């Protein structure tokens, strides 16, 4: 059901794959170990390589098949196969009733999606990018997030808002904002930010099955990146619990906490640092709200050092929230140095490549920050 033509990748995919390859090579001295880490972890016999895009596609396909109340609406999701081809093949399989192309009316169709959820359906509302969700943000917050509370439990809103979030490549300021902090500010919403294919599939399935409004933040640069998926993760019932972080790499010297694309950057940085004898514990948040603080605290109480890494702006960001929580909890007394935040630069995203590259955290920034935090 995924790709009718598995060897054909649109231009953007080839660019993304080249970007991820460059990323591995940038991580430096040893590209092979990076590749090995990505592609060949675990020796499950029936593991396959699946791109994040295909993992999302599979998740939606399986949930559409499982529950006839589930449907997808958004711009270009049907006949165009999705602006980023995430919903490729779904319209052909499920037709006009379940896969609905909308006019360019974010506020309108987000409201329609929320209304349909109130009346018993389980919509997946796609924003072409989360930048456009700002047009509809009132429906997400005031109509979706708050309703179960305002009605004292009379009216649930089982809806998923999904789409690419954060920076892409060369799309400039209006198309590059990260909304993790904005949505995670609000009670009544769950906010999820997958990194790899397993995350994408398991979390999207969980989000669709959740009876609450879930903001599902994807990343365009990750769509074309392939990861190994074990046999277990390929099962139609495989879901990942919302609200639980995952430790991607064990380590003793410093805790790196990240979400989405930057988890990969953290792992690359960890590989470089390992050669210098610094062992990083890398935590993939997976869910931003409700945040799994316990996993972070347990790790900090072991490593005594914390570095947060995100693509969004620093002020009032995800890292800022983590800092505050650590200070308020048991892990504070275990810190040997203040928490360090690695974030996007506090500017609108520029266009020129050299400027764009320097607007987001690079692997060298993470390495530098870790060393500063460890005072080495």
């Amino acid at each position: 059901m995924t790709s009718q033509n598995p060897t054909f990748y649109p231009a953007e995919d080839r660019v993304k794959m080249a970007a991820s390859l460059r990323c591995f090579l940038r991580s430096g001295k040893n590209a092979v170990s990076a590749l090995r880490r990505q592609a060949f972890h675990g020796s499950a016999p029936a593991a396959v390589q699946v791109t994040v895009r295909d993992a999302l596609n599979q998740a939606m396909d399986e949930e559409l098949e499982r529950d006839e109340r589930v449907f997808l609406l958004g711009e270009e999701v049907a006949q165009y196969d999705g602006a980023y081809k995430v919903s490729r093949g779904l319209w052909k399989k499920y037709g006009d009733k379940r896969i609905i192309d909308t006019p360019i009316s974010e506020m309108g169709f987000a409201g329609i999606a929320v209304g349909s959820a109130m009346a018993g359906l389980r919509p997946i509302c796609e924003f072409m990018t989360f930048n456009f969700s700002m047009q509809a943000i009132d429906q997400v917050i005031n109509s979706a997030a708050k309703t179960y509370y305002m009605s004292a439990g009379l009216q649930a809103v089982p809806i998923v808002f999904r789409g690419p979030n954060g920076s892409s490549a060369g799309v400039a300021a209006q198309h590059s904002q990260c909304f993790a902090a904005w949505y995670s500010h609000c009670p009544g919403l769950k906010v999820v930010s997958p990194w790899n294919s397993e995350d994408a599939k398991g979390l999207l399935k969980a989000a669709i099955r959740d009876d609450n409004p879930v903001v599902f933040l994807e990343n365009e640069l990750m769509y074309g990146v392939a990861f190994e998926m074990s046999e277990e993760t390929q099962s139609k019932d495989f879901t990942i619990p919302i609200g639980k972080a995952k430790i991607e790499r064990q380590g003793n010297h410093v805790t790196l906490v990240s979400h989405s694309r930057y988890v990969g950057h953290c792992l690359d940085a960890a590989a470089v640092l390992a050669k210098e004898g610094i062992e990083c514990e890398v935590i993939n948040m997976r869910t931003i709200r409700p945040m799994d603080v316990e996993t972070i605290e347990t790790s900090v109480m072991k490593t005594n050092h914390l570095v947060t890494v995100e693509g969004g702006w620093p002020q009032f960001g995800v890292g800022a929230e983590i800092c505050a929580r650590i200070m308020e909890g048991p892990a504070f007394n275990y810190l040997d140095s203040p928490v360090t935040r690695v974030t996007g630069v506090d500017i609108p995203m520029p266009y020129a490549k050299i400027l764009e590259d320097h607007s987001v955290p690079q692997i060298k920034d993470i390495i530098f920050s870790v060393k500063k935090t460890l005072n080495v």
Partner: protein
Amino acid sequence: MTSVWRFVSNALCRITGRKVGSTVVVSNSLNEFTTRASFDIKKCDLHGLEAGPPLKTELSRDEGLRFYRTMQVMRRMELKADQLYKQKIIRGFCHLYDGQEACAAGVEAAIDPSDHLITAYRAHGYTYTRGVSVREILAELTGRRGGVAKGKGGSMHMYAPNFYGGNGIVGAQVPLGAGIALACKYQGNNQICVTLYGDGAANQGQIFEAFNMAALWKLPCLFICENNKYGMGTSVERASASTDYYKRGHFMPGIRVDGMDVLCVREATKFAADHCRTGKGPIIMELQTYRYHGHSMSDPGVSYRTREEIQEVRSKNDPISLLKERMLSSNMASVEEFKEIDIEIRKEVEDATQFATSDSEPPLEELCNHIFSNNPPLQVRGTHPWAKLKSSS
């Protein structure tokens, strides 16, 4: 005998100055009331329609008394809310519906309980017609645990089966209503969604987005604009380049209806609901109505309109009086009967008030509940880090 009644009826018409032409159906004896009568109703202006609602309607005595009762309950409930607000027992926002009763009563009479309805913040009337008791409405306004939303919603956030509030953000309820209609069509249940908004909201962009999609996808959505001539303090002439709200759907058919005549509202809604239900797609109804109170309880309502105007509507066009006079002049009920109903209603509202002012406030343990549906309990941060509060579904 018929001519005698017609003479009486005509005389009464001249006395009341009302064009209540009626063909009277006489029952068995002089002492009994007319059980059924036919009334002329005002012709509706049409947009994009060849034919509209009928010009005559029948009303039975029972239906008439029910209408009277429903509208009088709404009236007394809103006036009680006014009183409680002035006593500071109701706080925050309180947008009262008195004057507009015929809209809520007429609409509900023309749809089924299994149909859906959503409106904006002037919602107490619809909350009642959609099945919530006066007791639960007033207790919600006073913020008590016996309120329909356990005191957590307040005036603008009351819900019931197939009633989706009560919505505070002007215009946001319109796409929601179109979405509910989409669910009806998706599920093939032959139900419609009545989606209400005001003359102020009629200029919201998202409404036109909803119109477009509803028409495109032929959603069974009955859009109703309650035009009470003022969006807060701004008259329709000062807010809209076109005040023909029934035409604002452009490609969507529309009807303009006398919203002060409950029978007119009922017939028009029947017509419009049928249009939706038979797969013809969405339709707009503009109900021309009036609110006696200001925009909300913090608005005296006389800085942007004259007291004379309000008084004029009260004396000449009040929806409850209109119905009462019709029924009296057709001998469908007596003055004493109406008085008795008023007394019953007064008691009902007093009892509800007694409950709403004596019931306890919600327990503090409820503070963080109802964040998520169907979810294991979670911890919620209180005002400081040591306040670890519990949230259940």
